[in-house]
């Protein structure tokens, strides 16, 4: 059991620098920044007015059934798109793979906060009778993992790590452990977040945790710098296909 090694056979990313791994990596290697003035809502009342927003993202392409777009928070939509890219690269859709041995572990630090915010407004203004039946399934932090498994029929281990900024990293670690321990041969692992909304920008702002270098968005994120003044929020998803080495070799992945 301890001899089981784990390799990476697929990658997917949706980020403020590009909506595929290739675009993301190319922009990153060129030293570009994805941070700019927030477009998602009117930030004039907020101390922090900058963030890394995804541009030109089309959620419809991420799902087999376009109806799912209406029933998912943006954090799940970007997770689905990154998972699709990773699953395709890994070639998980071709060949006779045992779907009981493929799991999903795509976590989120907060989940569908934008949905909660919008629905809370509905609750206050129109009452509980107008709340969407999709509020809870859109909000919960494990729904990205759940929907990815339903989209592709992966019936292996399925859960979501929720550990703030460590979520994606820990998801990959847990995925490695699940494969090493022989509970699965493949895990679609990673993380997703999309909370550029008033509650999150306001909430992190109240903690004095966000940079207010609003006049220099591209230079605002500077960890360990003497003149650092906070973190800069961004949205995105990163997904890896982790696979047991011999399993990957057998199918020529």
């Amino acid at each position, binding site marked *: 059991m301890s001899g089981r090694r784990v390799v990476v056979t697929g990658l997917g990313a949706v980020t403020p620098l590009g909506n595929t791994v290739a675009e993301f990596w190319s922009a990153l290697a060129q030293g570009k920044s994805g941070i700019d003035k927030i477009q998602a809502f009117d930030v004039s009342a907020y101390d922090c007015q900058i963030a890394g927003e995804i541009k030109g993202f089309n959620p419809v392409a991420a799902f087999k*059934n*376009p*109806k799912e777009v*209406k*029933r998912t928070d943006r954090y799940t939509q970007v997770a689905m798109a990154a998972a699709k890219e990773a699953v395709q690269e890994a070639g998980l859709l071709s060949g006779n793979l045992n779907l009981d041995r493929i799991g999903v572990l795509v976590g989120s630090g907060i989940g569908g906060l934008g949905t909660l915010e919008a629905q809370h407004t509905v609750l206050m203004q129109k009452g509980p009778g*107008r709340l*969407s*039946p999709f509020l809870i399934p859109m909000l919960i932090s494990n729904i990205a993992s759940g929907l990815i498994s339903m989209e592709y029929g992966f019936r292996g281990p399925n859960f979501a790590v929720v550990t703030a900024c460590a979520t994606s990293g820990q998801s990959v670690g847990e995925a490695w452990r699940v494969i090493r321990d022989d509970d699965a041969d493949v895990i679609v692992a990673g993380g997703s977040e999309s909370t550029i909304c008033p509650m999150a920008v306001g909430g992190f702002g109240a903690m004095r945790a966000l940079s207010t270098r609003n006049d220099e968005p591209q230079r605002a994120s500077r960890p360990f710098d003497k003149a650092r003044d906070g973190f800069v929020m961004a949205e995105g998803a990163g997904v890896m296909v982790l696979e047991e080495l011999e399993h990957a070799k057998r199918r020529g992945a």
Partner: protein
Amino acid sequence: MADKTLEERVKEIIVEQLGVNAEQVVPEAKFIEDLGADSLDTVELVMAFEEEFGVEVPDEDAEKLQTVGNVVDYLRDKAEK
């Protein structure tokens, strides 16, 4: 501008909510079996009808609305009252 008929308004809501083609939305079409709705879709659909037509649909009535035709008849009945 001519007002849309009740049928047209119902049809538009169904197309929008369930992401189906307008041709599929015929009176005898069942929401779950024919139009691919699940239980949460049907709840949301009824809410959309309530919003559009300014009516209250009690749960016991909502359960009986299984086809497109059921909805059109029900809403017309409500409108006449």
